[in-house]
């Protein structure tokens, strides 16, 4: 059993009670809600005649269903409009703050909360969205929940939970130029598998992790869930504190100093024990891309689609399904594979540094003919910052569309979607069958820079080998 890890300390502090079933009642410090997984929770609350216990600890935004072209109300899609108006009504009725469209603070929930300083080290963070693991980047224990649990958090500011084991993923070395946090996490999932993390929280540590910016740490923790780990985290350090200082919801003045010393006390100590440990070397990781229908089916861009012989026996049926669905041959090189659509955005890679990385590839180049390429900032703040430094112009000049913030084509609950068997180069997080809105649409996951490179050449391209603009 793990001891003295950040996970153990934060868990103990938030433990409300041992329930008769043996599960723990865990206090939730920050609850984030959005339009998709909250309406039924509010309806249940109403049915039970309950109120929201801590409306000030719940913050709402709208992200999944918003169009990224025109965000004028009412939306053209009546169902989307109904979802947003339901959220607005619920927030108003229960006194919950909504960072709505045009507020300057709307965005994908996992982009919005960190940039406002809502997410802080040592908190428990819950949201009806599996990518809540993102917030672990701050040294928070953050995890996705279902709608019944959203109801429970609204009613009691707590949840029934079981403690996870803790696996430390220690990453030595440094990521090479052209290799990003996205490549690192795709490599981790490829190595440990999509169910490797079931039952675990992942602690990401080591020199390569310490060197990551907060936005890179968010990308990493975001996809812990794709590796089966409901939460992933990085111990808070000076990078964390520098990021938080001065943000709207961060403590200030003397409270800031007390906060920093508390946050420091929560990091996994030298005496920490882990249930498991895995070591990796960042320097050996190439730009990584998925070829199949689960995020674990990843390879270096310089590799070929694995053959059945190279695939562990238990994974072969899935590999065969993936060859068929993706229309790929075992042994086929992934570089050079033509793409149709290039999507830069999502809670994984829709932050300013992601857009900068993609823009640096787009600058002075042109999107290949016949390719649809578009950039969706993760939030209104990201959009404003990117526009202030002219990234929108860089993208537009290169032939990318510059859109309004939202989840967009990551899950296609809005007008952005693949058509038919189109294949996308996507900076998002899931390549499941049908994920991007077409039942036969295909997704290749990769870093924003790799997506930009694919847009320029029209096919999967090692971003490190792109000829000078």
């Amino acid at each position, binding site marked *: 059993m793990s001891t003295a890890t950040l996970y153990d300390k934060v868990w103990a*502090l938030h433990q409300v009670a041992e329930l008769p*079933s043996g599960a723990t009642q865990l206090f939730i*410090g920050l609850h984030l809600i959005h339009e998709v997984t909250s309406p039924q929770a509010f*309806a249940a609350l109403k049915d039970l005649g309950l109120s929201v216990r801590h409306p000030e600890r719940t913050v709402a935004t709208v992200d999944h269903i918003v169009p990224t072209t025109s965000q004028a109300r009412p939306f053209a899609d009546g169902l989307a409009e109904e979802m947003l108006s339901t959220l607005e009504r619920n927030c108003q009725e229960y006194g919950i703050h909504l960072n709505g469209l045009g507020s300057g603070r709307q965005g994908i929930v996992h982009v919005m909360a960190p940039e406002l300083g809502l997410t802080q080290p040592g908190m428990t963070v819950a949201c009806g969205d599996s990518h809540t693991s993102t917030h672990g980047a701050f040294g928070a224990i953050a995890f996705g929940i279902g709608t*019944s649990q959203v109801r429970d958090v609204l*009613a009691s500011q707590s949840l029934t939970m079981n403690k996870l084991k803790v696996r430390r993923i220690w990453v030595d070395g440094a990521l090479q130029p052209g290799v990003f946090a996205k490549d690192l996490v795709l490599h981790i999932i490829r190595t440990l598998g999509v169910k490797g993390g079931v039952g675990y929280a992942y602690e990401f540590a080591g020199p390569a992790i310490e060197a990551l910016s907060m936005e890179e740490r968010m990308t990493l923790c975001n996809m812990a869930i794709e590796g089966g780990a409901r939460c992933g985290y990085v111990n808070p350090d000076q990078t964390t504190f520098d990021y938080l200082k001065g943000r709207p919801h961060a403590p200030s003045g003397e409270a800031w100093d007390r*906060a920093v010393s508390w946050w420091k006390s929560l990091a996994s100590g030298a005496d920490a024990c882990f249930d498991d440990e895995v070591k990796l070397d960042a320097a050996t990781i190439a730009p990584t891309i998925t070829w199949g229908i689960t995020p674990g089916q990843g390879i270096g861009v310089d590799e070929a689609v694995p053959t059945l012989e190279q695939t562990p026996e238990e994974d072969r049926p899935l590999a065969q399904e993936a060859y068929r669905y993706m229309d790929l041959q075992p042994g086929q090189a992934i570089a050079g594979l033509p793409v149709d659509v290039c999507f830069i955005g999502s809670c994984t890679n829709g932050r300013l540094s992601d857009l900068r990385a993609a823009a640096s590839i787009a600058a002075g180049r042109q999107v290949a003919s016949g390719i649809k390429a578009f950039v969706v900032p993760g939030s209104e703040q990201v959009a404003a910052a990117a526009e202030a430094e002219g990234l929108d112009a860089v993208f537009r000049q290169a032939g990318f569309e510059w859109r309004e913030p939202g989840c967009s084509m990551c899950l296609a609950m809005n007008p952005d979607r693949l058509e038919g068997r189109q294949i996308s180069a996507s900076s998002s997080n899931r390549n499941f*069958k049908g994920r991007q*809105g077409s039942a036969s649409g295909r997704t290749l996951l990769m870093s924003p820079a790799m997506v930009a490179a694919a847009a320029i050449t029209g096919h999967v391209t090692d971003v490190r080998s792109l000829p000078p603009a």
Partner: protein
Amino acid sequence: MTSTPFPSGAISQVSGPAVVLRGNDIDTDRIIPARFLKCVTFDGLGAQVFADDRSEQNGEHPFDRPEHQGAAILIVNRNFGCGSSREHAPQALLRWGIRAVVGESFAEIFYGNCLALGIPCLQASSEEIDALQTAAEAAPQTSASISLEPAAIEIEGRRWDLSMAADAKNRLLGGQWDATSQLLQQEQALQDTAARLPYMQGFVASR
């Protein structure tokens, strides 16, 4: 679609025909594609469960086969329900008629969502699941029966031991799988917990 009542109260056993869905890592986007999440109630989800897989298989998907209509037990393989946290996935299974799931392993959020709806998820080794699936496929119309204590499934007189985490079992057996009222009972402990968390006090100096 089912006319069986939704789970309520203590759940110690589930019986009904079993339907087998083979494959590892079946994600919640497949169980219920995202476009069906555009709803403010769960009511219509039963008809949409596995919509894209079913349309691709053109009537041959287990959920479309006539012999599996009325099935109450779903038998799956490894890491079932991975991906999105959408409770819409177990809600759709529930509304189609599923009342228990047996598999080699489950994604955690999906497992918790099932529990919150009173759907037991029970486990067995991959070899046992394989044998169980073969037995269930051979007897699609036969009622199988699952007991939680001891955890086991019986099909056509053959019995397989299953496993289930103690707290989930206790919550189902005790009728406490719907957690809200239990959580609300801990008023003092909730106040005490909030009081000891520095961020809940705005990091003011302790007195």
